């Protein structure tokens, strides 16, 4: 989506501007700095339902922190400070968010940056102190096969008094690699930001590259099918993972089996288990034959019934319900305060879904019920996922029943200026932004839903006990790689 002219404001007033928007029900969806001379332009992307606005401010050196008034901006300002060298004055918790290294200059600035002479920023201790309190450092190397992340728990016995997430171990420098001539194919790179959300990331990237010209209808339908299959396999993974984490082994094995069958069908139909290489700028790469469509429908139905059965196992087993209910509650006000998105927000009573509010591809023409629950505990997040799988199956079947022959790819031209791609990934609202200047991508910003949801988890775990943390973490189902780009 091409973004129009921004609301320009003085850096000293940026926080007030953003606050005024937020008071009117807008939400900060992304913030990034794009270098300009002499300083940087701080861009704040806001969204309210189907409206998207941008506030931009030319900043040299430092500016009063937006997060002082709008807490949701906090994590973005940490990343901007660290990666682009824009200092938010009066920020309450200024520690690195992504890179955790101090060098000469900043990685996302245009001046050549060398990794020689970089120093690791030491991990901060939690501020909480007292007799009988212990700090437990966990990770980044974990005992299981999961992504790298460091967690610091301050505990009094088992209850958690404070927890801080320190990520950045999977930093790949993709934002920098995205810069360069617009004609370069970026889809394959976007797919590797977070491999399990390959479709969502390549779709967001395609939306930028394609400009506002629509792709053929058949391609739009296939894109919806791909997105929804991706949602199903991600949600199944989380549901099975929840069962594993509370040692409910039979259901865990069943959930993994259902997911595995779907992934194998993906490989057979789309040529890749995680659907990589399917979304390309201008359309999709592979057309579906009649035979593929019926295979696809069978595979998706199987996954849908499997998910229902898995949900039944969970709900009918009191010992599992006991673990999931009232665990890791994220209250509605916290969900709003931290600007959470996706399943996490929808389980806490914040009904926000890009597919309904800002329809892209064919979503506007399809009918579905956005799922939303109130309690915000692990069980609600599991229930939202289980219900969304059913909705996804319905969306896919709607697409396959209305498919008509036609082309699947069209030429495109990338406009200059600032554009963004906002899609609903399985984890929630995903935002890519690109500043294109004279046919060159000058700055590319990636905001994975995990990036805004991680800080909310620091709140959701409070007053829970340490052994419940794996369950809470799994129910959020966040990406480390997507956060660290």
């Amino acid at each position, binding site marked *: 989506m091409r973004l129009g002219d921004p609301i320009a404001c003085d850096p000293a007033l940026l926080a007030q501007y953003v606050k005024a928007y937020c008071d009117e029900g807008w939400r900060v969806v992304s913030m990034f700095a794009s270098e300009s001379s002499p300083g940087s332009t701080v861009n704040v992307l806001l969204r309210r339902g189907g409206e998207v606005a941008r506030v931009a401010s030319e900043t040299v050196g430092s500016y009063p922190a937006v997060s002082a008034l709008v807490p949701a901006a906090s994590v973005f300002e940490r990343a901007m400070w660290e990666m682009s060298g824009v200092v938010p004055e009066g920020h309450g918790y200024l520690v690195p968010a992504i890179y955790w290294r101090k060098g000469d200059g900043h990685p996302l600035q245009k001046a050549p940056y060398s990794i020689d002479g970089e120093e690791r920023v030491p991990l901060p201790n939690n501020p909480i102190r007292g007799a009988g309190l*212990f700090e*437990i*450092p*966990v990770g980044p190397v*974990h*005992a*299981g096969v999961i992504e790298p992340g460091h967690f610091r728990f301050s505990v009094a*016995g*088992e209850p958690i008094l404070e927890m801080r997430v320190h990520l950045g171990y999977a930093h790949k420098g993709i934002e920098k690699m995205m810069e360069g001539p617009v004609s370069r194919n970026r889809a394959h790179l976007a797919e590797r930001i977070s491999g399990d959300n390959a479709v969502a990331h390549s779709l967001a990237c395609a939306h930028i590259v394609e400009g506002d010209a629509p792709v053929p209808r058949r391609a739009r339908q296939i894109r919806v099918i791909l997105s929804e299959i991706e949602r199903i396999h991600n949600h199944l993974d989380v549901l099975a993972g929840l*069962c594993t*984490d*509370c*040692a*409910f*082994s*039979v259901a*865990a*094995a*069943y959930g993994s*089996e259902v997911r595995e069958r779907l992934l194998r069908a993906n490989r057979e139909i789309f040529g890749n288990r995680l659907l990589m290489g399917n979304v390309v700028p201008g359309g999709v790469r592979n057309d579906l034959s009649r035979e593929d469509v019926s295979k696809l429908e069978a595979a998706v139905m199987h996954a849908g019934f499997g998910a229902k059965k898995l949900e039944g196992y969970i709900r009918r*087993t009191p*010992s*599992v319900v*006991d*673990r999931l209910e009232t665990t890791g509650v994220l209250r509605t006000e916290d969900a709003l305060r931290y600007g959470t998105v996706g399943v996490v927000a929808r389980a806490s009573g914040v009904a926000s879904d890009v597919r309904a509010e800002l329809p892209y591809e064919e979503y506007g023409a399809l009918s579905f019920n956005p799922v939303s629950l109130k309690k915000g505990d692990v069980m609600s997040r599991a229930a939202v996922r289980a219900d969304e799988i059913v909705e996804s199956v319905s969306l896919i079947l709607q697409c396959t029943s209305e498919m008509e022959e036609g082309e699947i790819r069209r030429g495109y031209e990338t406009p200059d200026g600032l554009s963004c791609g906002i899609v609903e990934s399985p984890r929630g609202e995903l935002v890519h932004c690109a500043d294109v200047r004279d046919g060159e991508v000058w700055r590319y910003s990636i905001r994975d839903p995990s990036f805004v949801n991680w800080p909310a988890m620091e709140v959701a775990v409070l007053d829970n*006990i*340490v*052994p*419940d*943390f*794996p369950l809470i973490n799994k129910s959020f189902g966040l990406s480390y790689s997507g956060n660290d780009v």
Partner: protein
Amino acid sequence: MNPFEIVLMALQAAALMAVSPLVVGIIRKIKARMQNKVGASVLQPYRDLRKMFRKESAVSENASFLFRLIPYVCLTSMLLLAAMTPFVYTQVIAPYADVIAMVYIFTMFRFAMVLGGLEGGSAFGGMGSSREVMMSVLIEPALLISIMTLSAMTGAGFDLSAISGSINARGAAAICPALLLAGTSFVITMVAENTRVPFDNPDTHLELTMVHEGMLLEYSGRGLAIMEFASMVRLTIFMALLGTLFFPWGTAMAMTAAELSVSLLAITVKMLAIAFGIALLESTVAKMRVFRMPNMLTASFALALMAMVSLYVL
């Protein structure tokens, strides 16, 4: 006691220790089948132990000499218990096979393990140890009372062989509320003491929820092999006690070839049944919250107490 009997007892203790990895392998196999998986061979625990024995043992810089000593303390206590446990033949190293000694050798084992968890100086060892201690203070009285109920019931004193023999001799007449209540209490303590689901997950290395595995986290190579082996033996001893103390029918009392072979068959069937029960339990329930464990263990204690009381009331 004639020399032949002594040889037989030594053989029995050796057999109990030798089959313990097999018992664990069978439980894992049944669990895997229940999850629709093929599962590793029942002999896999032997292979794992052999592999770990060959590997070098890394010791934390913070650890003192205790860290190296503890695996041997654990192994020795299990060796003692294996010699005391009626398995195929009830006459064990009586009169040394004393109920109270047995319960406190279990405690020694646990104490050594808790120390080992603390020795490494890692956060997880400490967490595992603190949870283990929380559980053990509740396990100990339940275990003691449930077994003492048997000694009160039979009037056989604290001698394990005599208790087993006495219940066995009474046949079906021995079945009474006290025996069943004490047996149920013992099953709960067995599951808790061996840190199985729902108290702990033996298959996980999910670091934040570990109890037993947390304490073993710093061990590697031979130390780990010994600790793992000792834990397997502990589970087997508990299963054997359930099969020979609480439900001893079929266990040989005299040393004749006929009785011994019947007894061998009986204990095999009992062990398989108990293994199946454990696997079934682990497949159908989830691990409970840490703070629910005391409730469950208190229930076990209450059952044991009721068993004891019912002896005098009913």
